[in-house]
């Protein structure tokens, strides 16, 4: 069970809701993923054009925990403003702090992320910061009191998977709070790997929404995360440089 701020979840897959090819595909993908936590962005309503169906408004809100993000914010101040708007809906009190510092790499701004997290904790939010895989930054965020750490595997939407497993491992080892690998997941092996390293969960969006078959990919990710977690709990074998036979060395008919 994944526990975040005294709330428990069966699923360790947190799913993004952006960029799906259609509402129908999105609904099915969310369903088969069995995810219980869905991220959303906070934006101006498009009131000047004809109303498009809105995914959130069609969702059974009793089944899901909403995790709005502060995407779009460049500063802590903007992130706090977005978070408060989200909370004002009355639908959620968790916030994914996302303050991007570079438009090309979409890597997070560590300083603004730290500031935003601190302010939002003071305001009583359940804070889940999206951060780089900087080990010391992760520690500082944890010291502030954030409720989970969400280090990136690689840049958002890049599909590169885990490019620095060592850093992730350090972060996982040092954290008493849940570590949710967020950003850059490309295929099921990446999600499984994150879980095998000891992560508590995985947050992904593009890997599913932009797959050729998002519904099948959502299901694959669900299985990968379950397999990775079980593998972690089962205690894998050590890596060795040389071979160790699997069949007995005694009683051979050739001796």
């Amino acid at each position, binding site marked *: 069970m994944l526990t975040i701020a005294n709330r428990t979840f069966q699923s360790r897959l947190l799913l*993004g*809701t*952006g*960029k*799906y090819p259609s509402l129908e595909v*999105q609904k099915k993908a969310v369903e088969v993923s069995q995810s219980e936590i869905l*991220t*959303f*962005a*906070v*934006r*101006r*309503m498009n*009131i*000047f054009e004809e*109303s498009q169906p*809105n*995914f*959130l*408004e069609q969702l059974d809100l009793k089944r899901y925990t*909403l995790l*709005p*993000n502060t*995407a779009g914010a460049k500063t802590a101040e903007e992130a706090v*403003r977005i978070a*408060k*708007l*989200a909370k*004002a*809906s*009355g*639908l959620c009190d968790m916030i994914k702090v996302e303050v991007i510092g570079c438009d090309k790499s979409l890597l997070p701004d560590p300083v603004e992320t730290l500031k935003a997290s601190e302010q939002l904790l003071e305001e009583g939010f359940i804070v889940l910061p999206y951060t780089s895989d900087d080990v010391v930054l992760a520690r500082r965020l944890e010291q502030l009191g954030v409720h989970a750490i969400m280090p990136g595997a690689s840049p*958002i*939407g890049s599909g590169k998977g885990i490019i620095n497993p060592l850093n992730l491992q350090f972060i996982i080892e040092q954290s008493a709070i849940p570590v949710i690998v967020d*950003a850059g997941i490309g295929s099921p092996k990446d999600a499984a790997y994150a879980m095998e390293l000891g992560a508590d969960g995985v*947050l992904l*969006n*593009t890997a599913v929404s932009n797959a050729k078959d998002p519904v099948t990919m959502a299901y694959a990710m669900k299985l990968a995360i379950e397999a990775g977690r079980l593998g972690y709990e089962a205690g894998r074998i050590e890596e060795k440089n040389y071979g160790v036979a699997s069949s007995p060395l005694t009683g051979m008919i050739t001796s």
Partner: protein
Amino acid sequence: MIIQLNGKEQQLPENVVTVEDLLHLFALNNRIVIVEINKNILRKEHYQAHLLKEKDKVELIHFVGGG
């Protein structure tokens, strides 16, 4: 009156005076929407009473898909 609505200048019909009226104008009364006026979030229970003023900067916000 003229207000700024979601970043655009908006002339409001004379009978639109409260936030509730504004939401009704755009058929938003039954939608999930958050209202911010001059950077202050307006609570739902105040929609009917809150009077809009000339040059108010109003934002009608909602949730969309995102990662």
